[in-house]
């Protein structure tokens, strides 16, 4: 099979829509265009039925009741709802919220907003393996803690958190537990009852569905979770999120979820094999490579690597026919290395030298082989050009050098 360029290896950023999802959505743009809230005619009933079917499929992925699924515009909105909605509704109960320093910006920035509203937030800094444990959460708990929000899987380093343990801990203390499952939903087994999850965020475009649609799971019983609405209006979605439903998007999300459930096990095996082969090639061909985040306790489709003595942006420039993401955001002109890697205790230096490789449903072995070979070639070439690599080879301890920084 011949390779098609550029090769897409950024599946944690977004995923291409599965053609089967596209097909399912098609009639809902023109032929079946009804408003799911229209009660008086068949157009509305048809749309409502399609939404209900999707809701069922989406709930099944996490063992939820379909009535507990609230549709949103995406996981960013869901995360905002979880934090701000709970804070507002439960502020009489307490003032303290726990999250981690390596959450997605949708959580971090919502938490920062809550601080300006007078809430107290603890940001747990996980160790170098990137895992936030139940013990760390327990240590941060106070009498006035009302919410814990810890992600299921990290978007940069792919690390999986022990959400079942954290859920059990929170339930025991009567504290609500939200998990941002944007990267985990449909990819790893999640059961909201077994794991004591009270709120959960997910997004369609990370699971081969369309962009612009997401969901928040909100537990209905034991305990019944209540949220203050952020978007007010016609009282859709049990009053928690007003606005005409994105019927075609929801249909697509439902189909995407169904496919994820059918193919999860097989796909995880395939992706793990691809990823491990990729990693093995890297480690065979290069003398210093580091995996960022836990080696095995991670998403099958994620590998975040640091290549010391090579700067990430120059590496990406060499990978011009491959779409990957750099751990340092130099390309966005901010010149700031990844806050996730920094919080995990990776020095700026390694954070500047990191690349996130994301694999997914349409990744092939040929692509993986090509990118692995290309990466090692460029890393070796750039190291030949690197004064740091030369110094290390001469036995210089880089941490002891007095740099003339600007």
């Amino acid at each position, binding site marked *: 099979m011949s390779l098609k360029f550029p090769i897409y290896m950024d599946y944690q950023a977004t995923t291409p829509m599965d053609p089967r999802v596209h097909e399912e959505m098609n009639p809902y743009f023109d032929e079946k265009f009804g408003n799911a809230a229209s009660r008086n005619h068949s157009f509305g009933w048809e749309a409502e039925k399609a939404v209900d079917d999707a809701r069922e499929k989406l709930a099944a992925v996490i063992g939820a009741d379909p009535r507990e699924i609230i549709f949103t515009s995406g996981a960013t909105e869901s995360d905002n709802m979880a934090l701000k909605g709970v804070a507002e509704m439960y502020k009489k109960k307490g003032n303290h919220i726990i999250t981690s320093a390596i959450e997605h910006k949708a959580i971090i920035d919502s938490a920062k907003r809550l601080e300006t509203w007078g809430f107290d937030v603890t940001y747990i800094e996980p160790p170098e393996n990137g895992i936030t444990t139940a013990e760390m959460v327990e240590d941060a708990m106070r009498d006035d803690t009302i919410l814990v929000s810890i992600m299921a899987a990290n978007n940069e380093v792919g690390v999986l958190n022990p959400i079942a343990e954290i859920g059990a801990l929170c339930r025991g203390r009567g504290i609500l537990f939200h998990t941002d499952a944007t990267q985990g939903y449909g990819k790893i087994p999640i059961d909201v009852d077994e794991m004591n999850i009270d709120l959960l965020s997910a997004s369609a475009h990370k699971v081969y569905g369309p962009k612009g649609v997401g969901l928040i799971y909100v537990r209905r019983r034991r305990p019944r979770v209540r949220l203050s609405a952020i978007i007010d209006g016609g009282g859709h979605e049990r009053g928690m999120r007003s606005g005409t439903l994105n019927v075609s998007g929801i249909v697509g999300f439902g189909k995407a979820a169904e496919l994820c459930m059918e193919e999860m096990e097989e796909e995880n095996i395939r992706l793990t094999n691809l990823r491990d082969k990729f990693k093995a090639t890297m480690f065979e061909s290069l003398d210093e490579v580091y995996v960022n985040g836990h080696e095995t306790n991670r998403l099958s489709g994620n590998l975040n690597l640091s290549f010391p003595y090579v*700067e990430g942006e*120059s590496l990406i*420039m060499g990978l011009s026919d491959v779409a990957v993401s750099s751990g340092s955001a130099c390309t966005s002109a901010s010149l700031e290395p990844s806050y996730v890697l920094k919080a995990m205790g990776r020095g700026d230096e390694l954070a500047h030298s990191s690349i996130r490789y994301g694999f997914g449903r349409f990744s092939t072995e040929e692509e993986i082989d090509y990118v692995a070979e290309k990466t090692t070639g460029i890393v070796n070439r750039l190291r030949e*050009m690197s*004064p740091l690599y030369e110094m290390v080879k001469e036995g210089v301890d880089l941490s002891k050098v007095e740099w003339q920084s600007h």
Partner: protein
Amino acid sequence: MAYSDKVVDHYNNPRNVGSLDKADQTVGTGIVGAPECGDVMKLQIKVDDGGLIEDAKFKTFGCGSAIASSSLATEWLKGKTVDEAEEIKNTQIVEELNLPPVKIHCSVLAEDAIKTALNDFREKNGMPVVERKGHH
């Protein structure tokens, strides 16, 4: 971000990558930048008996624009006298490589590396060093 053709050319075919003997009296070395900032440049010149720069080498840890700036600097240094080399300005590098505003610091670093290497040579050979006016 789109790179200019000249930056891409220097990145793909860097000129004068390598190292000269730091201990050699005819060699001047400049190492500037810091790993945690994402840029380190090493630039070296070798000066012949007639006072002309006969060779220049670089090694750079940094983005494509930093590599291109230092590669270009070595090209410009060769054949110049030490005093002529002092006149190379970062703005000339910016112009030649079409560097966007966010990459101007790469050219500043290259100018810094040139001047540090020149002063290292002067110092080794008992010549007065050129004072640097202010810092960026």
